[in-house]
């Protein structure tokens, strides 16, 4: 019964402290329901019982305006409930801030509007946090620009990312799977697209994944690698493939763009070629396509030369039928 109720109210419980927090929720929930029922019952009962009936004469009403017994009850019962809530809230909170010594440490960087994850044994992922199950994971968070907040609902955990200071959160995932990550501190135009996934793997599988990180793509053909990078490097948060404009222009039919003229917001224009694409990935703020805000972050240092080649190759493959 309680399990089904938990499923109704909450996302899955994946971290070790999730069930404790949900239980705290249910404690407050049932106490609140009890108090609320008393309030509503009292209100309805008294207003109907003492209603002014039709034709009834106005009379002097009771001068009772005080009852020590009732008032102390109204004071003491909520006080007890609130005290339990406070202590429970703090105890559970301490579990959430004291990081176990054997936690693996992953660096999380928020940047408008994607997440970068740096792993302890080298290697980086974008918008995909990969962690082993049943092992504490410590996240060290910061931001490269404005405030962001890193929220994993299934872990019941959240922490702001600041540009000037590191914040820390941790969790121990108990179930393998793929779960949502949201940005919960407003960060501008792409805020609602600044999502990511956390992928929880068996520890053995994670080890294997971590050792292959960065090397697996070496022998892919360029255009296939580009297609992978399109989601892996978060291009898709701002550029669609189906023609709808998000924050940036869509990639629909980019294969036919080569040789065409591109007009910028300062009135200048250029002919689209490989170099234009390369510079608009590495120095996006220098030439802004007319009709769009210049908000793209630079990918300098985030893409290797081969990866840049791959993205350009990928854009060349997109003809009118390309839809994902």
């Amino acid at each position: 019964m309680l399990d089904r109720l938990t499923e109704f109210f909450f996302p899955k419980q994946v971290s070790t402290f999730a069930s404790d927090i949900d239980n705290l929720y249910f404690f407050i929930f049932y106490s609140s329901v009890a108090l609320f029922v008393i309030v509503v019952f009292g209100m309805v009962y008294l207003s109907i019982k003492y209603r002014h009936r039709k034709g009834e004469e106005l009379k002097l009403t009771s001068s009772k305006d005080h009852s020590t017994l009732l008032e102390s009850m109204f004071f003491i019962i909520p006080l007890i409930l609130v005290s339990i809530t406070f202590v429970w809230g703090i105890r559970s909170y301490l579990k959430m801030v004291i990081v176990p010594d054997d936690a693996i440490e992953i660096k999380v960087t928020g940047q408008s509007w994607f997440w970068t994850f740096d792993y302890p044994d080298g290697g980086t992922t974008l918008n995909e946090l990969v962690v082993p199950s049943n092992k504490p994971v410590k996240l060290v968070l910061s931001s490269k620009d404005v405030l962001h907040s890193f929220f994993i609902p299934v872990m019941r955990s959240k922490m702001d990312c600041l540009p000037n200071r590191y914040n820390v959160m941790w969790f121990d995932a108990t179930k393998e799977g793929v779960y949502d990550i949201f940005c919960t501190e407003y960060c501008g135009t792409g805020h609602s697209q600044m999502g990511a996934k956390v992928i929880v793997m068996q520890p053995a599988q994670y080890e294997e994944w971590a050792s292959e990180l960065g090397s697996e793509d070496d022998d892919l053909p360029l255009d296939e690698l580009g297609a992978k990078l399109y989601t892996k490097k978060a291009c898709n948060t701002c550029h669609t493939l189906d023609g709808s404009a998000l924050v940036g222009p869509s990639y629909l039919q980019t294969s036919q763009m080569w040789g065409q003229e591109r007009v910028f917001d300062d009135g200048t224009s250029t002919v689209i070629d490989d170099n234009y694409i390369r510079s608009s990935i590495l120095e996006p703020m220098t030439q802004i396509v007319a009709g769009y805000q210049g908000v793209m972050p630079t990918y300098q240092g985030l893409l290797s030369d081969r990866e840049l080649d791959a993205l350009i190759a990928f854009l060349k493959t997109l003809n009118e039928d390309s839809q994902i």
Partner: protein
Amino acid sequence: MSENTKQNYLNHPKGIMSWLLTLDHKRIGLMYLFSGILFFFLGGLLALVMRFELAAPGNDIISNEVYNNAYTLHGAIMIFLFIIPAIPGALGNILLPLMVGAKDVAFPRLNLASFYIYSFGALFAMYTIINGGVDTGWTFYTPYSTQSTSNVVPMTLGIFIIGFSSILTGLNFIATVHKMRIPGLTWYKLPLFVWALYGTSLVQITATPVLAITMVLLMLERFLGIGIFDPALGGDPVLYQHFFWFYSHPAVYIMILPAFGIISEIIPVHSRKKIWGYKFIAYSTLSIAFIGFLVWGHHMFTSGQSVFSQIVFSFITYFVGIPTGVKIFSWILTMYKGQVSFTPPMFYALAFLFLFTIGGLTGIFLGAVALDIHLHDTYFVVAHFHYVMQGGTIVAFLGGLHHWWPKSFGVMYNQTIANIAALGVFIGFNGTFFPQFLLGLRGMPRRYATYDEQFVELHSYSTFWSGILGISIFIAVMNLFWSFIKKNKVDPGSNPWGGMTLEWTHTSSPPHPHNFEEEPVLQHGPYDYDQVIVEKTYKK
């Protein structure tokens, strides 16, 4: 009826200049009321635009940019242009001098100045909209607000200016309560609405300067790059949050205390019963105003502040909860052995008790640090503060308008339509915001223009009911104004609910230009329904 009683503040003196330069607190209150309701509708329209965009997951009607502008302006307009200035400014201005038996507020010219300062600030806010909006959220968190290319400066300048109006009105009300009471009207004989305005004013004059300083620092940061919030220059963006919430949490009490006052008037009058626990309500108003200054850190539970601060702020937060809870029980017990009439104001008061209790109880969830980490910046918070601000303050405001409408304007609205609209507001409100608690629990972040498929069902419920809510509020307000047009006048001596405070017993409806024809003599306390029978007189 003598010629003199036909003269009232609405018809004497005449002419547009007599309104624009009026020193009469009632006329100034009326001007606040009109501008407040105008902004209320504007903010409400923006809310509906957002809700309809959120009916389905993608960008269906408006783009991310437009959505971000809409939610920022919705919050800023509702808070800074409607709730904070309009309730003390409109109902407070019209009623405070009447309730203490004075001819006017202590400083009538200052009162008019307050209104013009408010209008001047509002012009900047309107300029912001015309000039393309602002997209930072009403909280203006740095560093986003120092980098955004939208109209941050005009908006913050507007808020800065409106702050002075708030401070001056607060000063005026405090002086009025201290110095303008008629002989015999001691503190414990004051209507509780006066206590509430007094508490509100104390918060206004002490907290608003902090907001003003914060807004100035933000503007300086943008113009001169002084670096107080900029890490590159040794500043700290989190410092901004401390400054901002040091004002904005007390501001919650600027918004809710007048509502408490309204409810403390409506329930005893419409129950014809002495209010339960007068002194407790009076003192808890002041203590809530004070404790409200010590809990700002609970807005920053995920900002990375120290564990010790988290514990302290969580602890103090609960100290606000307890007296508020006892107040709710006091209002309910007031009905015990009374004669309760189900009039439109009473319906609003009962709706307030229902909705505000939910708003208050969900605050307890958010005060528990461990649980707040999950709920912070999700729709749970959105639902919580709408239950407090709209379900609490605005429902009480509508109740207050219905209660004092015949008094203020000498006209009576259609009570059947008023009751139906009140029911619509109640149902529409719950339909709109209750699903949002669930959205938040399931992890839906706030301030999202688009969202994940998993949330679509609850979002579309919320949107559907927001339409009903919008229509109901529109009908409720139009029904009030229709009584003007229809000239459904009540007799100047009417006391339709049997109120006991001076504005009901000692002056005509609408009141005389100088409030009372002669200085009123206090005959009984504000809620002495156990000692005096006040007839309900309502003659057309």
